[in-house]
């Protein structure tokens, strides 16, 4: 393996190096390279008082003088950059260079990093599908190196999802998964009891009562490959069945369970018209949350931090009017879809020891407390749930603690987007009154299985 790699990288570099002209230009350009004034580093401001008090008074700073390069999504800025990084710098003495990027732009950047075997970044942000995509070319295998005793404290549902073909590539810092949230005012107005529906049938009944006068009762994100697949899974998971086999080789949609989930969406959008068809163009759960916070829909499947947002008067009209519960299920009592995120180490990093310290930092009790209290996401560290501050700051975690007992798999895989695209295409057709749920399930089965077969034919194994 290593032999192959060096030979291959030689030929590639040789290709460029062969051209002596580059050297001439290097002389000119490196002189001009200085024109790029080093921008003020975007590293975090001083730790806020709240965080500073919890910082341990570590006398020894093992990584003083070293630098850690973090490359993450910009939805982490307010928490990771502003809260976690200062803590880490205090604790280790290392300097953190924090770079954030639109999560949608990460694809192109990661691909380039992987293709060029780049070592400039040490830590990448990751979730299940990034794990599966970059396991073989960019992310470090953490199975042998990450401390077992630390890992033991972390919730194993998210840990399992960051595992690809038996190896662990990312340490999750949350156990973020969709729960159920409803608007108590709209429930009252529709004459509904002040409780979450306990099955999909009851959910449909509630919805029909909420959908009056041209309003819709709920909204699902079905706008692109990722959101369609995710939305399908949230429902499908509550049948207790598996959509893709453990070895990631067989898809199982053309089953009674798959049909049940398809039929549920079909009825909601086409037959009973209580699901807002605008969801067919919405791919972000934040957009979905906004609709709820604008008081326009009665209930939806929400990420836990949406509850925190809904209590913020500057962006919500439903402050104090929402409650959370667990998602009503199709066969089981409940099921969900996960949004676990975490950090991975660049396998080409030259700074792995410090990078490992960062991973441990993200699941340390003080950071995990911040995940719960400041971010509104359920922590991944099991012990953090019993922290009274966390319980007080985020009452919705009671629902999460319940929700966690039901399946919430995301089926991250190298072909995630392509399979998701099949779901997106076929469900879109169906929800616009095209093929029946049965035909849709059959089509998805056929098309998605072909994608999976093609992948394994190429990957060999």
């Amino acid at each position, binding site marked *: 393996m290593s032999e192959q*790699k060096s030979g291959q990288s030689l030929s590639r570099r040789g290709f*460029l190096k062969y051209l002596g002209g580059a050297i001439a230009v290097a002389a000119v350009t490196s002189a001009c390279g200085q024109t790029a004034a080093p921008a003020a580093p975007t590293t975090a401001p001083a730790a806020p008082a709240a965080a500073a008090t919890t910082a341990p008074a570590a006398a020894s700073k093992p990584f003083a003088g070293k630098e850690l390069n973090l490359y993450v999504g910009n939805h982490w800025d307010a928490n990771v950059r502003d809260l976690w990084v200062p803590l880490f710098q205090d604790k280790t003495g290392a300097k953190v260079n924090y770079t954030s990027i639109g999560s949608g732009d990460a694809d*192109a950047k990661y691909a380039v990093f992987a293709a060029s075997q780049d070592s400039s970044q040490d830590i990448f942000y990751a979730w299940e599908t990034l794990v599966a995509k970059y396991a073989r*070319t960019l992310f470090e295998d953490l199975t042998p190196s990450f401390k077992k005793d630390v890992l033991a404290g972390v919730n194993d549902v998210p840990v399992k999802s960051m595992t690809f073909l038996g190896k662990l590539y990312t340490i999750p810092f949350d156990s973020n998964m969709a729960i159920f949230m409803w608007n108590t005012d709209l429930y009252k107005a529709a004459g509904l009891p002040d409780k979450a529906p306990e099955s999909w049938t009851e959910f449909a009944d509630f919805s029909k009562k909420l959908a009056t006068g041209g309003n819709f009762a709920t909204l699902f994100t079905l706008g692109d490959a990722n959101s369609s697949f995710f939305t399908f899974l949230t429902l499908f998971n509550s049948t207790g069945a598996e959509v893709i086999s453990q070895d990631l080789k067989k898809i199982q949609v053309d089953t009674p369970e798959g049909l049940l989930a398809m039929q549920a969406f079909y009825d909601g959008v086409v037959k009973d018209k209580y699901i807002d068809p*605008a969801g067919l*163009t919405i791919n972000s759960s934040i957009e979905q949350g906004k609709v709820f916070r604008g008081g326009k829909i009665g209930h939806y499947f929400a990420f836990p931090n949406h509850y925190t947002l809904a209590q913020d008067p500057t962006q919500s009209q439903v402050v104090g009017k929402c409650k959370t519960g667990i998602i009503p299920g199709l066969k089981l009592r409940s099921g969900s879809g996960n949004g676990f995120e975490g950090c991975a180490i660049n396998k080409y990093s030259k700074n792995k020891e410090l990078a490992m310290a960062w991973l441990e930092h993200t699941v340390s009790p003080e950071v995990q407390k911040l995940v719960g209290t400041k971010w509104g996401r359920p922590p991944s560290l099991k012990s953090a749930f019993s922290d009274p501050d966390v319980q007080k700051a985020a009452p919705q975690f009671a629902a999460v603690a319940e929700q966690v007992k039901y399946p919430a798999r995301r089926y991250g895989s190298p072909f995630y*987007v392509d399979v998701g695209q099949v779901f*997106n295409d076929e469900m879109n057709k169906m929800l616009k009154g095209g093929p029946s749920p049965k035909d849709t399930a059959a089509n998805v089965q056929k098309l998605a299985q072909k994608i999976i077969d093609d992948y394994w034919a190429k990957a060999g194994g």
Partner: protein
Amino acid sequence: MGTETLVPPKASRQAIFWQRFHRMDEAKFGVLLLSPTILILVIFLVIPILYAIAMSTQQVELTISPDWKFIGLANYTGLLSDNRVLDSIPRTLYFAFFTILVSTTLALVLALILNEPFRGRQIVRVLVLLPWAVAPVVSGVMWRYIFHPRYGLMDAILYSLGFIKQYIVWFDDPTVSLSIASLATAWKGVPFLTLIMLAAMQSIPESLFRAAKMDGANVLQRFRYVTLPHLRSILIFIIVLQTIVSLQVFDLIYTLTRGGPGEGTVVLNFLTYLNAFERLSLGKASAMAILLAVFIIVLSGISLSFTVQRRQKV
């Protein structure tokens, strides 16, 4: 930068150098002036292109392994049986056709209008330039906001005028989405096309119009028999230009629809992006891009030589 070749290394040699420099014959002097540009283009354009061509003969699948494997032309032949490619061809053609149709028509009408004297013409001429300066990334955002299902201007207007009872979801239909992407591309292209068309119109001798008028030709006839023949070669140029623009569209779709709904707006160039960076099939993506480039070059070559011929005739 790059002029260092022109600067003598030592003062003592200066005189000789300049003497030689001034006596240099034209062709050599020309090559000297061109050399920095040639150097830049070779290093930063030709080498990357050669690299891409090399990559297109390799199997590079980053979801599987970091290694390259030589597979000859398999990436190219594979494209012929790739459903995604086959599906995106009609989409690309529709997109290109619609973009060309809308932008050329609008530019022609706008140029005709701006060729007429009217009060405020100067300011209008300046205002219609605006889209030319707007970045495709931002234009994608703008058009998304125009057709947004919750706060889109289009829905707001239709609703306020009473045409619709409920906001329409525009981007859930592939054809509509593709058409909106075309509109946005045309929107950005019209100002420039108008300018060149206007210039061509203004170069038509006034006497021709007077003669046509004396022969009793009406407005439409004058357009048909005087204006249009003079615009023919510029029209062909514009069509070629817009074809190239629409075959290379990327930024706009990236922020407008990201290829959705489904793969409804995945045109060839966007598919290249998806193959390279979403599916990490770099070899295949390179092959696609190179085929697309060959197609564009052949297309523009044919139509430009045609234009030049026409020109020589006129």
